[in-house]
């Protein structure tokens, strides 16, 4: 009998179709085709990207020249623009505004390496440092409300070209719908119980153990109870914090190790699948009305969601927002726990 499971944060229902149960080898993993000649993200090719916004580089080296460790450049095809006014207005029943925002590419290594998990922990830590620095900088722009850090790995996951490890960030002038839903769900739970729903979830998962993928340092990787996708994994800090940018140096190193190991397990268990990851952290907290962010420090808990792209999203999912997941998360966690690399 398939099971319906409800995500305790957003209230989203998911169908766990165990009858269609799929093990890692049952998924047809396809990377899709990608052009890989003349990669502009490699060291020495700096002039083939737009002018760099930020870089962690060796002392004495110049911007847009070799000598960097992590480099941030504007997207060549930005979906939002930095210059201009928002100009919010209405047109009959419709509302619109100018597409103001930022769209940046974070080049995670000067070497032509495809997968983040193949970089050393210390390099991944530099990537996390870079995310933090970019978010702190973008927060100064009062037009912006949210920054999403994400990664598309493989053509199926939306990456267009070049197998060179990188992630992206998009800063938006409105809080996105899914983020709002998560915030609202966490707030609702807090108003009712006076506790963070993610902290409660961590406690319950640590007691139950059957959905835990990995526990390392201050972090936990878990297959969520109502996983939308097979082998979906979330990474959460054990210590409560709503804001990703407030991590200590030690926590950043822990997170780098955690990301590396979780991604390596997924790569090994599923045969290098395309995947997306996204960071969900608190929005910039500029109060519009008195008390609007009153409890966010206590009610929200930042985390990373990793989504291997193994199934196709079809009419039912688009029409209902209900996902059908053929691999029970307990099974997924078991496989991933047992995967060595």
């Amino acid at each position, binding site marked *: 009998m398939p099971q319906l499971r409800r995500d305790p944060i957003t209230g989203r229902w998911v169908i766990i179709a165990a009858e269609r149960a799929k093990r890692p080898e049952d998924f047809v993993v396809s990377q899709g085709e990608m052009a890989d000649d003349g990669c502009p993200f490699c060291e020495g090719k700096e002039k083939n990207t737009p002018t760099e916004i930020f870089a962690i580089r060796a002392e004495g080296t110049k911007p847009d020249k070799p000598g960097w460790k992590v480099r941030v450049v504007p997207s060549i095809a930005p979906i939002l623009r930095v210059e201009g006014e928002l100009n919010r207005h209405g047109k009959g029943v419709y509302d619109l505004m100018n597409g103001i925002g930022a769209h940046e590419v974070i080049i995670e290594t000067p070497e032509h390496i495809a997968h983040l998990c193949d970089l050393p922990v210390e390099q991944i830590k530099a990537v996390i440092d870079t995310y933090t620095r970019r978010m702190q900088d973008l927060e100064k722009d009062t037009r912006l409300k949210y920054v999403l850090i*994400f990664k598309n790995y493989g053509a199926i996951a939306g990456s267009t070209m070049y197998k060179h490890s990188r992630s992206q960030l998009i800063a*938006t002038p409105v809080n996105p719908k899914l983020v709002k839903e998560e915030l609202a769900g966490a707030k609702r739970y807090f108003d009712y119980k006076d506790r963070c729903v993610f902290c409660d979830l961590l406690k319950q998962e640590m007691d139950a153990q059957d959905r835990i993928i990995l526990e390392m340092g201050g972090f936990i990787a878990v297959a969520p109870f109502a996983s939308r996708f097979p082998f979906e994994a979330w990474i959460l800090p054990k210590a409560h914090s709503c804001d990703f940018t407030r991590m200590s140096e030690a926590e950043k190193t822990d997170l780098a190790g955690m990301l590396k190991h979780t991604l390596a397990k997924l790569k090994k268990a599923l045969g290098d699948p395309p995947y997306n*990851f996204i960071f969900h952290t608190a929005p910039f907290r500029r109060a519009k009305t008195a008390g609007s962010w009153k409890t966010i420090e206590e009610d929200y808990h930042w985390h990373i969601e990793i989504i291997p792209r193994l199934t196709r999203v079809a009419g039912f999912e688009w029409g209902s927002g209900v996902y059908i997941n053929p691999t029970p998360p307990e099974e997924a966690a078991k496989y991933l726990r047992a995967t060595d690399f």
Partner: protein
Amino acid sequence: MPELRRDPVTGRWVIINTDNPRQPSEYKVEPQPKKSVKCAFCYGNEKMTPPEITAYGVEKREKNSPGWTLRVVPNKFPAMQIEGNLDKAGIGLFDMMKGVGAHEVIIETPDHNSEIPDRDEKQIRELLWSYRDRSLDLRKDKRFKYILIFKNYGFSAGASLDHPHSQLIAMPFVPKRVMGEIEGSVKYFGYRERCVYCDMIRQEAEEKDLTVSENKHFLSFTPFASRFPYETCIIPKEHFSDFTNINDEIIGDLAYILKDTLTRIRKVLKDPSYNYILHSAPLDDPERDDFHWHIEIMPRLTKVAGFEWGTGFYINPTPPELAAKTLREA
């Protein structure tokens, strides 16, 4: 400058690329596979599917044998199962219930190669009647709160079989996307005492720039805040919240506009994969002033990537006005 547009029903923001709008030829459309001749949904293979629930066609036909024009069977690999109680339960934080529901496949025609644009209107009317008949039958089962009718055409749209078919899933809760539409239209109605969809239809009657085609009873248009390029919505011009109220007078217009819209999409985008879904009011309260049934057609041209998954914010490279113009002139 790209534009941010807000969907007036759900409040969802969409980024529209208005600077260098992508033309139809710039989308990479995977050709639909060469069709095989015989499959489990073809004449003579009726025993290969689970026993039929209902069928249309010649009278006094023996069940599960040829002679049908349309056939409804249970899905062989159902996402939900019809037997049993819901057994709602909780473990600590987590809520769950049994996956009780119905998952049916509507085999639209015995002809393996006849997609909707290839069919005559009589056949399409029959398809629409079958949607209505199955909805009316399943809503007698009080465990169900919603019935979603949808079609996946082509591999990129999630179809695993070539033979023309639609699907239906009856479920014991109102799904999230539908809930979002209901909540948004209830809020709008509370403020204005008008249906938000009726207001959109009225505004479109003046502006005309989103119209793909129309006839007496229906409008086919590209929504102002389309999530996907060439996304198209078919909606009755008169206020109806419940799809099952379609009648002899308007069904011909619906069959015509569905065929017309899908034909235009096929022509302009070179036979792309697509999904369509039918949103009708939830079963508990089907007749209501604040909701308006409609069909959403979504050609699968772009890949949904990390940004969309993380935010629910969509990026549409083709402004809906341009999409409407291209489809209108096809």
